[in-house]
């Protein structure tokens, strides 16, 4: 008898567990199948929330997702801006900063939350995430907000930084943490090797590199140049070479790529030759994080790296170093990188208004200037460089303005629909080239084929 009772209990327990699992699975299916229903529900919720917030004088609360991609105390810097903003808008707006990992993690978190009807109010995502975010219909165009401001507001931004944030005539984001790639060089080593100035063209690059390579007993002890290459970011590192050779890797609509264009192939071949033909650069993949360490240790005389490394290099270099624009073969010199500010769609109007206030604050000259000095990112507006702080900083440390000056000769970062798959297709083939498993032409044809498959339907 007793045992029977117990087994009955166990049965009920197991049944409950199963029921729980089944309902759990069911609810997720429901959510995707009856999207319209949940959407109208959310709309109701929105209006409810909105009316509630209007009637009571509660401050608007904003959830702000941000990634960190320059290491260390930078996260604290972002939080200090938020604090400053909250103080200025006490009683009206409260921004809650939510650190969300890397750029990729931030996008995953935003996607998960938005699908569950928990969308953040605003966030920092890659400028190139624009296709992902608009294809999913997550983000709100900012044109109406810009129209409310003086015309000088939008004109103050550097035009190159605004590139690529428009689709179908609508602008979806404003720049916040943006970088370009620049050439860092060890002034002392250049002088010692008889190289008078930093190379400005491809020919000068090869010539200077050959003078700078140092060999001892048949082993290279110092390279002329190091360029990060390989892995999922390979597309970003190879793109400047394509731009320098005068080719855009994607059209502005993000529907076509030019991976097997003769000029792209030529550019990739030039990169390959730097290591294999001219021998000024080590062969094989080069780690992004290791190269500044090599540069600081004097293991390479020049390196191509993000302006995001500038503050780090400046603090650690025990030698005199210079920064210059990337050498070119006639085209633009570099691509851009980094993150923009986006406002989400699925939130009450007053949250959108408040989010706009916060964006204006983050792109204001004082914050843009401070952020640029703290991180090495480009100050996003012209007036940022007019602030006394940044002016003095640039005067004392002219390298800090190279990235900005290079904006005149910069192209937009490779971005297409289905961006993850397309850049992956390209990066994988770059890997195949640098590891020597495919010829440049074969690899680029394969990249083109795979990218076109990923772009079908757009």
């Amino acid at each position: 008898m007793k045992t029977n009772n117990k087994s009955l209990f166990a049965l009920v327990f197991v049944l409950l567990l199963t029921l729980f699992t089944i309902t759990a699975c069911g609810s997720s299916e429901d959510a995707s199948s009856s999207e319209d229903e949940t959407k109208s529900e959310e709309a109701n919720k929105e209006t409810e929330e909105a009316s509630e917030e209007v009637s009571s004088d509660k401050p608007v609360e904003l959830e702000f997702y941000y990634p960190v991609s320059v290491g260390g105390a930078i996260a604290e810097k972002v939080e200090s801006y938020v604090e400053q903003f909250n103080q200025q808008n006490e009683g009206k707006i409260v921004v809650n900063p939510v650190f969300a990992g890397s750029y990729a993690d931030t996008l995953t978190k935003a996607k998960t939350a938005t699908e569950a009807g928990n969308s953040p109010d605003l966030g920092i995502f890659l400028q190139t995430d624009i296709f992902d975010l608009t294809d999913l219909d997550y983000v709100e165009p900012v044109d109406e907000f810009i129209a409310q401001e003086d015309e000088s507001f939008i004109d103050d931004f550097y035009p190159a930084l605004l590139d690529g944030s428009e689709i179908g005539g609508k602008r979806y984001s404003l720049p916040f943490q943006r970088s370009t790639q620049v050439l860092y060089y060890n002034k002392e080593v250049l002088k010692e090797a008889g190289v008078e100035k930093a190379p400005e063209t491809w020919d000068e690059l090869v010539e200077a590199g050959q003078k700078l390579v140092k060999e001892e007993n048949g082993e290279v002890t110092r390279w002329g140049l190091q360029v990060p290459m390989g892995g999922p970011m390979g597309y970003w590192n190879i793109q400047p070479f394509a731009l320098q050779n005068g080719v855009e890797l994607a059209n502005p609509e993000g529907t076509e790529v030019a991976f097997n264009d003769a000029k792209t192939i030529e550019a990739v071949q030039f990169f390959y030759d730097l290591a294999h033909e001219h021998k000024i650069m080590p062969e094989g993949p080069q780690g992004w994080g290791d190269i500044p360490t090599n540069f600081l240790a004097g293991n390479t005389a020049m390196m191509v790296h993000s302006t995001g490394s500038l503050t780090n290099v400046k603090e650690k270099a025990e030698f005199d170093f210079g920064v210059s624009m990337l050498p070119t073969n006639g085209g633009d010199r570099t691509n851009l990188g980094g993150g923009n500010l986006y406002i989400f769609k699925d939130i009450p109007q007053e949250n959108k208004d408040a989010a706009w206030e916060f964006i204006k604050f983050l792109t204001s000259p004082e914050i843009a200037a401070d952020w640029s000095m703290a991180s090495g990112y480009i100050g996003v507006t012209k007036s940022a460089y007019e602030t006394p702080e940044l002016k003095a900083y640039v005067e004392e440390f002219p390298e800090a303005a190279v990235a900005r000056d290079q904006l005149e000769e910069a192209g937009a970062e490779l971005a297409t629909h289905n961006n993850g798959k397309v850049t992956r297709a390209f990066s994988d083939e770059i890997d195949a080239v640098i590891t020597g498993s495919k010829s440049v032409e074969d690899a680029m044809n394969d990249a083109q084929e795979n990218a076109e498959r990923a772009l079908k339907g757009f």
Partner: protein
Amino acid sequence: MNTTKDKIIHVFSTACIILLSFVWIIPLMWSISIAFRPANDVYKGLFDISGITFENFVNAWNEAPFGSYYIATIIIVVGILCVQLVTSVLAAYAFARLEFLGKNVLFVLFIVQLMIPADVLIAPNYEIISDFGLIDTKIAVMLPYFASAFSIFLLRQTFKQVPIEFDESAKMEGASMWNILTKIYIPMAKPTLTALTLTVGSFHWNNYLWPLIVTNSEENRPLTVGLSVFSASSESGANWATVTAGMLFVILPLLIAFIIFQRQFINSFMHAGLK
């Protein structure tokens, strides 16, 4: 003849073990060595250090609120372990020894869960947690792991090996099911339970993506999220000194636990593996 052959095998396998353990220990030694040296010595050789400093640890500690991350991590890991072990023991016992309608079908359903990768479940789990209104709580981090198909399966296999005669004679003596479970099954499954505690514990100690997505505020986030503040430095070069110091903060408790419980840890795997 035989003995010399044995000896050769013995020497050879020992050499292999030493070599392997050396390969395994190198990353840890590098990390420790880098964490204790001045930031500018990072690129020098393993033992080529100009001095020992604790500066990196101070920097790392100041750059993220490790104190609150530690508390959150401990609450989350202990919470998951407590609930998961209880649910797994009960379910495993039911599957191993009780007879009820649809037992085999249910068991297969549980086993099927083993084949679903955890990352796929992030979105549906998030929706459930969101419906419960639990976003940004520690409970949200723990809830999906309160039951585990893997633990149930492992424990069921162990319980199955307990001779059924023990069960029957205990019943003859009039022991209740609860008594049988606590006096016979749990003690006999101790090695498996230890193994489970350690693997489940270290898995959740290291879990990153789920806590990152489901929580927003500092006090609900574990150490791994804190670590990513330094390691996510895709645009600047990595500051290895601080990264390694922060990493040591994260792994230190696990490392200490491993050293203390080394014998149980290895025994439990030997035990679970050999059967």
